[in-house]
């Protein structure tokens, strides 16, 4: 199997719709809460940020780190998840 988590697969398998931000790979409860506090309450808002950063990995990672203090793994997971989603559906 690939090295992506089940969450990743779930997210990437279909359009995100109104999924909460917790549905993103790498974003758990704590991080999700932090993001929500900052105003990123839905996954598509984070997607928006991802797109605004032009899908640049480094920038997005930095942003994630700044916004919700995600660690490297979480950053990577989230980035990969969004990237793949974009590849599939965008």
């Amino acid at each position, binding site marked *: 199997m690939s090295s992506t988590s089940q969450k990743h697969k779930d997210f990437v398998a279909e359009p995100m719709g109104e999924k909460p931000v917790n549905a993103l790979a790498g974003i758990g409860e704590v991080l999700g809460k932090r993001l929500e506090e900052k105003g990123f309450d839905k996954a598509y808002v984070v997607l928006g940020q991802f797109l*605004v950063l032009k899908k640049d990995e480094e920038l997005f990672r930095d*942003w994630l780190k700044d*916004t919700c203090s995600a660690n490297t793994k979480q950053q990577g997971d989230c980035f990969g998840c969004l990237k793949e989603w974009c590849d599939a559906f965008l």
Partner: protein
Amino acid sequence: MASTQLTDEELFSELKHFGFTPGPVTENTRPVYLKKLKKLRDEQQQRGSRAGKTRSTGAIHSPSGGGNTAGPRPASHDVTHLSSSRRPGRKSSVLGFSSDESDAETPVNRKGRQADRSPGFPQHPKIRPTTPSVANKSQYGATLNSTNSSPGPGRQRGVSLGWGVRARSSPEAEGKDYDESGDEDDYEGEIEKNSRSLNGCGASHLNTSKLAGDYSDSDEEEVRGPGVGDLQQERLVPNVRRSHPKAEFAFHVVGRGSQTGGAARQVNPPEGLNMVGNRREEGEGGKGKRRDSDTPGGLRSHTVSPRKTIYVSLAENHGGEAGKNNHVDGEDGAYRSSRFAIGLRPRFSNYSSLSQTYRSNHSNHTAPNHSYSQAVLKQKLSVPEDELLQQFKREEVASSGSFSAHYLSMFLLTAACLFFLLLGLMYLRMRGSGSSEVDEVIKSHPFGSEFDELYNKTEKDLILKLLLNLHDHLAQVAGQYDCGDQQHLNRSLSMAEASTYLRSQNQDFDGFIETSLEWIIRTGQDVGIRLTGQVADEPLTDVSEISRLESSHPKMPFTCRFRRAFFTVISRVSLIAVVVGCVWSVVCYMKFRWRREEEDTRQMYDMVERIIDVLRSHSEACQENQDLQPYLPIPHVRDSLVQPQDRKKMKKIWERAEKFLAANESRIRKETQRIGGADFLVWRWIQPSLSCDKTSSMNSKVWQGKAFPLDRRNSPPNSLTPCLKIRNMFDPIMEVGENWDLAIHEAILEKCNDNDGIVHIAVDKNSREGCVYVKCLSAEHSGRAFKALHGSWFDGKLVTVKYLRLDRYHQRFPQAQGSSTPLKASSPPLSTTGTMNTVPHLQHRGAGNSSGFS
């Protein structure tokens, strides 16, 4: 943060300046972009400073700088390269600065500044660090630029530049919370330290840098304290702002430097000026913060000037520190001082501490910019030498401790050697001289108590003295004889000679000669005289039988002894060495032989294997092609396996291989055949070939089961489009054969044989991901296909499927637009579940070997 002064547009343009196209700078993305900008600036600074090898210093600086705002200071390390590189570097360093200047000026000034700075940088005038520093600073606050610009024109040449910068920095400093005051504080501290640490090389710097580190923003004025620097500072501060007593300042600084420098002020006035100027630049460039402290920094540099090395490192550090405003003070100071002192050694990056100390100076040293340019130039020229020299110096210092240790060990070694030598010589001497022995004889004689009783004292003495004389004489004779002195033909003396000699010694001896000899005979001990009779080796019993006297304790001169001893030792040692050498050579030879044997055997086996392979492949070829003879002539095999140039060498090995085969290989038979009219010894492979082991080992494309059950989570609930993109079905690099894509087609059709809706399949041969595009009649069909394919194992790879948009698909494969007839698997559909029939000849037909279990 100073960065907040930067508007979105500015940030955007700055980023673009680096060649990086940012996305929109929004409230959310702003911090990210700021960080990126900082990083880019750092990189640029590093790149610039790297040229001057300031990197290390910079790196070192930063940590020590600690609290100091890094600011643009790092950029300043590399004086020579700084101008252009600094500018960008400055940007990052400016981050820490809070720029006083209004932002409005920044972009304009900055750009302009950079423009005129970069070209000129390498040269004197260009060096004006202030400009670059200003530029950097202004990046964020634009203040730098403004300040720079103002003094700019005047500053171009050294002093003015420095001043201008300083002026700039002063206003900036006020506004900024960083190191203005800190700089001054540090500055002063540094000055003191510098003077103190002139010899210390760095310790003080560290201190100063620390000082710089904890400077507080508030105290601009504090710094004025310490003497030398203070005065300057004061003068500087009021004057700095756009004042032009730069020249004065420089001189003052120089003067101060001399005062403070004390000990080894290496700074000569011009240098000092330069240093000051340099410092400035560094200060400017690097951190831009403390303009005010530049002056003090310049001073400090003076004091520190003796420390060339430090300066160099400072310079380097400065460069390296780019992003750290904290280090501004320290670096500035250090930088300046380094520049200052060195004049010629611009960069010694190792002295980060130094740079730190100077950092504070740095910020303040806008003034000494004038000298800076000069210094920079000199520095540039002499950097390599200086660095080298400085390194050596440092090494010297460092090695002093070890030096003594080294000496100590050498001394001990020589002492031990001398001791042993002395011992040996003494031993030889002792052996050579028998004086004590001789004396002993007189006192105690080996003749026993009878002797004492028989004669009275005088007679006893006479006898003993006689014997002594005789003994000595004989010893001498023997010694001379032994030493190769052919004066005496014989080692021993005849009786007559002995008597003559003794008589000549003392008339009284005459009567006692025989008596004493008698006594010698009587005593069994060895008194050092050996008496031999006419017939050798017979014990004497009577005096009359004595014919020769010989000494058994020859007395030889010392050199002779030494020589003999030496020769003895040498001969013995050489003998042992020869023996050891022989043994060792024998061992080596044995090892060599053994290794050779191993090698030969290995080669032989290798040859055997190759022969077997050749024969086997030949026999297989024969099976397929009935025209060939099933045997191969041995010489032909040999010649095909062994290169012509090796034939001679391999002859022996070949023969061994042949023998081995004959003895141990059962599948090869040697026979004689007639080929082309001549008889040849041939080899025949007589093992019946195994059936199809090759084909069966080939990888066949099969469906190998499903990896995960498809449910709502990992697949779309409904099929979205009629087009599918299947990934990971093959690896284009690994594929061999002509029609593997057809095999893929077949495989897909096989898998979806229950689905009559596949109308187009396209294998993207070049895709690294192994993509296959499938179009179905309808979404429903594609959904079914999706379910069948997604997550299955195929040929060892996990296949994933996703939906594609129809129009995209048509764009890509226009021919698919018209296809509407369902495709069918070309081979008879073997059920994909449960059958284990493997059809060997359908090697590449994945469908043929489908053993997939759904």
